[in-house]
């Protein structure tokens, strides 16, 4: 068991990084609680796999330290960090049976055979692989092989944390949710830290207790799925999470009031300091926008039916504003006006939440 801390971490794949863009991971400090279920969420290229590999020791960070329970393990090799990693596509030893695959990490560490047998049986049962122990690993389907990969991590009693690098990528869609539930169930049973890297918000939000959202090498927000949804710290988080994502409208500020298209808009976070020279935007989720008698004038562009609600796409000038309405609410043909719920309307300066 361990709490993992990352201090002053910064990483570049180039030998001599010059500008900000040369850094794959910008400076960050992060702590992972022992036994937590974390998701590392972000689009491709945001640095999440780099971060994962730094934690597991497959990559040595250019700057900074990796601490397990306060001990600096930055220079320690992977196999001595007591972590396990499941990769994007299944890694199994084709020539061995499922049993031998699971036993492999234990045998390498000279664990006595009786203990090996017990542990392997136990883990196989947990992963529903018991009937296949004698089969050749190469003959299993993709999800079976991923379970083997996972199993090899679980058999080691000394494992502090399990890393998952987009493990469901090659799994058939109808099996994805099965495997996901299995992972969640496992986490509840064995209570070890699990860090799950993905670019799929559904995977992240259903698996994790806490989500770390990354964008262009930076950690943008850490929070529970609810927090990320209701109070995005960055417009990127607003965009990325939720479907459709948060509406972002350029606006201006006068004193402590937000001005949108000449009209004053009440926001949840009026600015307390000057915001000169920054790009000011208004962020509000479609869930908190509604038609009203008075408000922002918009032109209705499209209405899509999503079953339990409808998504209405409107346009104001060059900005697009989406809102969700109940199926029985009438959508005005013209002269539509929108009202923003002040409790969820927020100001962002240069993308970041104004606080």
């Amino acid at each position: 068991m361990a709490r993992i801390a990352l201090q002053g971490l910064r990483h570049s794949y180039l030998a001599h990084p010059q500008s900000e863009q040369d850094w794959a991971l910008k400076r960050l400090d992060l702590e992972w609680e022992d036994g937590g279920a974390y998701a590392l969420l972000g689009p491709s290229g945001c640095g999440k796999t780099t971060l994962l590999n730094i934690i597991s020791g497959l990559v040595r960070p250019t700057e900074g330290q990796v601490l397990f329970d306060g001990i600096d393990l930055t220079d320690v090799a992977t196999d001595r960090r007591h972590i396990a990693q499941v990769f994007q596509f299944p890694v199994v030893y084709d020539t061995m049976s499922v049993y031998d695959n699971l036993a492999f990490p234990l045998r390498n560490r000279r664990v006595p055979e009786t203990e090996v047998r017990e542990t392997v049986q136990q883990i196989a049962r947990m992963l529903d692989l018991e009937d296949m122990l004698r089969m050749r690993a190469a003959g299993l389907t993709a999800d079976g092989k991923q379970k083997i990969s996972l199993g090899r991590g679980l058999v080691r009693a000394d494992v502090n944390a399990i890393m998952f690098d987009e493990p469901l990528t090659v799994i058939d869609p109808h099996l994805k949710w099965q495997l996901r539930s299995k992972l969640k169930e496992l986490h509840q049973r064995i209570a070890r830290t699990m860090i799950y890297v993905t670019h799929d918000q559904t995977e992240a939000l259903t698996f994790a207790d806490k989500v770390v959202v990354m964008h262009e090498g930076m950690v943008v927000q850490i929070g529970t799925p609810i927090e990320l949804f209701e109070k995005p710290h960055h417009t990127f988080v607003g965009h990325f999470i939720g479907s459709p994502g948060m509406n972002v409208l350029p606006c201006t500020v006068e004193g402590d009031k937000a001005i949108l298209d000449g009209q004053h808009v009440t926001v949840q976070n009026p600015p307390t300091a000057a915001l000169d020279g920054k790009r000011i935007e208004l962020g509000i989720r479609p869930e908190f926008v509604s038609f009203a008698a008075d408000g922002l004038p918009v032109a209705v562009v499209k209405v899509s039916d999503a079953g339990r609600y409808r998504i209405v796409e409107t346009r104001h000038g060059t900005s697009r504003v989406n809102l969700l309405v109940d199926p029985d609410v009438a959508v005005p043909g013209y002269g539509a006006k929108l009202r923003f719920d002040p409790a969820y309307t927020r100001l962002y300066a240069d993308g970041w939440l104004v606080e």
Partner: protein
Amino acid sequence: MDTKTINQKGWLYVLPVVVLVAFNAIIPLMAVVNYSVQETFGNNVFFFEGVKWFEQVLHSERFHASLLRQLAFTGIILAIEVPLGVAIALAMPRRGPWVSVCLVLMALPLLIPWNVVGAMWNIFALPDIGMLGRMLNGLGLHYNYTQQPLAAWATLIAMDVWHWTSLVVLLAYAGLSSIPDAYYQAAKIDGASSWAVFRYIQLPKMKRVLTIAVLLRFMDSFNIYTEPFVLTGGGPGNSTTLLSIDLVKIALGQFDLGPAAAMSIIYFLIILALSWIFYTVMTRGEGPS
């Protein structure tokens, strides 16, 4: 994954290939079969002799000797070139600036005309004026490949290893390159030793390439003609007279059409049989891929 459509038009597409290859294969082979069962005393007059030539060849000491030499040669070079090639491929870096340079240099021997290979080693190993010959004799060894059968064999084998090991290296390296990094990373995490990595990851993934490499080297070494011919001419005496050299001597040298033809057929059958055995043994246990 077989989604081929049944289409007899396919024959039209393969027709040019069939024509060209059949022209070169079937007509000559027919002539060979023809000769193999006939006797001639010149003037284009032929008499049918049945299996006489086959019996003669199969019972001839000369043929047995050549066949034995050939089997020994092929066996030795396979035993050297395959492990050596694999070892070199394993020792090479997986990426980096040196890889291209190394591979290009290694590929050079493969593109030299075979007679130049033979001529080069012929001169290189000359006991009096060749670099290798001088060095070996300078070290105290009494080395002369033009007169000593053992020295001739050693030089022949060294030449073939020099010539063809690179093929094994290139193929093995290609196989190794196709292993994704994640496998090595997972092995690290599992605490696997380098031997375990070789045995459980690298070797299985290289199996297909190695099969190709072994088959190619087997076939080509069994058919080898030019390099040994230019190097030693089959000598001293006939100590390095391998099958092809013997056959050409009989066919083009002595113009013994009958025996040459019979030997050709036996030769071809031997190699077909052995190749099939090799292929089956090496792909045993592999299901449909």
